[in-house]
């Protein structure tokens, strides 16, 4: 007999089972903690997703059904929000995330050349991670340091001004050691 065609379950609010593999217990705790800390806020989804990503460094797809159920949303709605915003990532990043500003004020001071240099020396494109899992390279569109570009952000809030290719190499070297 021909095996029955597998149909992905449509997960609606409160429904189960869903197609995602189960969340490991530690992650589940972190997600539930993020939900409990924010659920009474009006428009709680973004604060919750921020809290999840702050704790886990990404928003695991396995957590979407749980978040949806707790907020009385559909999994599709949560997925739609996670994927709309550049900030939220659906896969774990490398040990350190390096963001290069691509915007005009930094372009005026050599950001295009810096971007090319970074991709070449790291051997990756934007949104990719080096093969040793150390560095993830991301574009960013303005860090508010437009008077002293090119700007590079290492990690969450270590911002660097006037970054030349040589300075970039130093930053990456330091970040690799620390990571």
């Amino acid at each position, binding site marked *: 007999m021909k095996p029955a065609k597998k149909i992905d379950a449509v997960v609606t609010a409160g429904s189960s089972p869903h197609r995602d593999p189960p969340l490991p217990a530690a992650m589940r705790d972190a997600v539930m903690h993020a939900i409990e800390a924010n659920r009474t806020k009006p428009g709680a989804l973004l*604060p919750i997703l*921020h809290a999840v990503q702050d704790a886990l460094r990404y928003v695991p797809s396995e957590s979407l059904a749980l978040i949806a159920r707790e907020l009385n949303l559909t999994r599709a709605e949560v997925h739609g*929000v996670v994927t709309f915003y*550049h900030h939220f990532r659906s896969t774990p990043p490398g040990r350190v995330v390096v963001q290069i500003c691509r915007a005009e*004020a930094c372009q005026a*001071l050599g950001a295009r050349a810096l971007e090319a240099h970074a991709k070449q020396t790291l051997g990756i494109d934007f949104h990719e991670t080096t093969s040793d899992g150390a560095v993830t390279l991301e574009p960013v569109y303005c860090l508010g340091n437009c*008077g002293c570009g090119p700007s590079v952000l290492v990690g969450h809030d270590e911002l660097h001004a006037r970054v030349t290719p040589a300075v970039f190499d130093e930053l990456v070297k330091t970040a690799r050691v620390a990571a």
Partner: protein
Amino acid sequence: MSAVKVFVSRDTTALALGAETTARAIGDEAKKRGIEIELVRNGSRGMFWLEPLVEVVAPTGRIAYGPVKAMDVASLFDANFGQGGMHALRIGAVEDQPWFKNQNRLCFARVGITDPHSVDDYIAHGGYAGLRNALPMVGADIVKAVTDAGLRGRGGAAFPTGIKWNTVLGVQADQKYVVCNADEGDSGTFSDRMLMEGDPLCLVEGMTIAGAAVGATQGYIYLRSEYPHAYRALNAAIANAYAAGWLGQNIRGSEVSFDLEVRLGAGAYICGEETSLLDSLEGKRGQVRFKPPLPAIKGLFGKPTVINNVISFASVPIILEKGAEFYRDYGVGRSRGTLPIQLAGNLKRTGLVEKAFGVTLRELLYDYGGGSLSGRPIRSVQVGGPLGAYMPDSQFDTVLDYEAFAAIGAMLGHGGIVAFDDTVDMLEQARYAMEFCAVESCGKCTPCRIGSTRGVEVIDRIRANIEREKNLATLDDLCNTMRFGSLCALGGLTPDPVVSALKYFAEDFV
């Protein structure tokens, strides 16, 4: 002898230039020498070429040194800088610097001077005088003051703030909101960030006045996630304002109650568009809404909402403190008051210049900016962010005035000025404008979502010299479709940098 007060900025740009290391070195050196100092982490004075700037309260007044690297610190102590001693990096009083003294610092009066977290320091420097005046006033009188001052939205659209507020005031509702658009995503702009990091209570006060004016009891600051230092500064200031009774129920014993919370965006340029921002605050994808209804009538969670930019709110306290006339006396034409202008890109002296409307672009680029950093001729400037037109030298005598810019197809926007030298490739800049639109489009309307991607392709074909004339005509057609067919300013204004680059720098398109 009492401790010497030393100021080192915690502004993002100052930190990016090493202010944290400098501050730590000063603390360590003072301890080593057994000298008692009080280290205050203030905002930036806005002179980025002097950051990290160190100021001390000497017997003769505040004296500045800069740029101070960690390795300079020991010699500063040797020079007895706490008493304003002579040193190669000594600037003197900031207020005496030509760059600084001709500014009209109304919004930025306290930025770089006070401790941003301290309510006491805020009040000691004139803070809360506006709200004190507003608390006993009826809403309509507060709105009238803002209207009479001629304040227009500083986010870029320049819509009269008082008219917006009046609409919200006139709607009956069980709940109204005040929302601050702090999603400052335009390249070349950082005045919102500097104000929030350097004088967050000024924004808090402005929003509280807005709440009192229209009868809103809840406020939200929608802050972009790229501004972690502003996030910390705002939260600290808000907590201190609550503790001192300047936020919450019955503020200072009045009938006015106002709660305020900071919410973080998540890296979406489009959320600077007010209706996208509201959807994002509601926990949704930040997609543009159809208008009408206006947010003033149906805004956040369907309730009447005042939504303004950081600088718009931060301009309100001084209007309520000194009166509409005082503010209106600054400026030209229909552009009243002052604009915090941000000098960015390839300039020698970048930073923040707050001036009354009416200054020319050329004065800003050369007198304040000092010309290009690279020493090469300035070929083009983009004013007003990634949706602003590229202007050639022949337009540098345009005065900063919303109408003067509109008359030549440019946009003053949020007051960011990005200078490029003659190494810029304007075709690449036009291509980037389309690419940026494609990356940041919310996807709701077709001209923006698809048009931007097609725009990149067409420009690539022009560069490759494939059916040149035909593709130039297609680009023109595409720009018209985006301009007139898009739902919001992202798709609608992306053609401006493209068309201006083509028009004024045609030689780059051959």
